[in-house]
């Protein structure tokens, strides 16, 4: 079995550390971009902690995990000093033809106002098969 079908899949909610210019600039530097004081388009990836928690709960073998799709919808601006509240939900985890397809949705809010909604899709292969 590729995943633990009895895993706890209740949504995970947490407060991320406050956004600082150091954190934002470190992300921009890591992707070879110039930090201009704004949040990089894919910075939402820094709020994926709960996705990894879900993958741990599902007992996913990371060797067999492929991140296949990522979507972001920007509903507002994040900025320095914000304390993002992150909620991740498991939208689906289904097995088909020897592979498992996992889809998770994460909403990043500040003071109750949604700022980023993201959907991440993964495929779990069996024994390194694509």
């Amino acid at each position: 079995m590729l995943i633990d079908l009895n895993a706890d899949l209740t949504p995970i909610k947490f407060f991320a550390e406050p956004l600082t210019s150091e954190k934002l600039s470190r992300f921009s530097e890591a992707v070879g971009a110039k930090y201009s004081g704004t949040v990089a388009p894919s910075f939402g990836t820094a709020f994926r902690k709960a996705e990894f928690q879900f993958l741990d709960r599902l007992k996913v073998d990371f060797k067999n995990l492929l991140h296949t799709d990522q979507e972001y919808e920007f509903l507002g601006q994040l900025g320095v000093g914000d304390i993002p509240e992150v909620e991740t939900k498991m939208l689906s985890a289904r097995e088909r033809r020897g592979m498992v397809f996992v889809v998770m949705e994460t909403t990043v809010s500040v003071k109750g106002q949604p700022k980023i909604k993201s959907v991440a899709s993964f495929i779990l292969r069996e024994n390194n098969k694509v």
Partner: protein
Amino acid sequence: MKFEVNQPLKPLEKPPLSREQLKSYAEASGDNNPIHLDDNFAKNAGFPSVIAHGMLSMAFLGDCIDFNFPRTQFALKKFSCRFKKVTFPGDVITSKGKIKSVSPNGSLSVLLWAENQSGEHTCEGEALIEPLS
């Protein structure tokens, strides 16, 4: 600024991917999957060496969006990406794109893709961008 369908974006080429960059990106993003950091782990997964984070390629596309559509003039509303091919240290990734459609209110739908040095698409995406009024 006027845009037309199929108008190409200014491409953005990055320096070759390095293991140091993968470490930096892992720290900055919180994605510490050992497949990006540990050669033995990556080999056990069937790859010849560590592979770059797919999200790093998406970040390159994001940088290409900012390069072509400065935040002082445009707002990014949606951004999606499908990962097509793994990338490795040493690969040279160039982000490219073109205008897919222009709506009457000036909103732009933009196709994006990242190419390796062989011209293979490593990821393909789309963005919805609105001009600031």
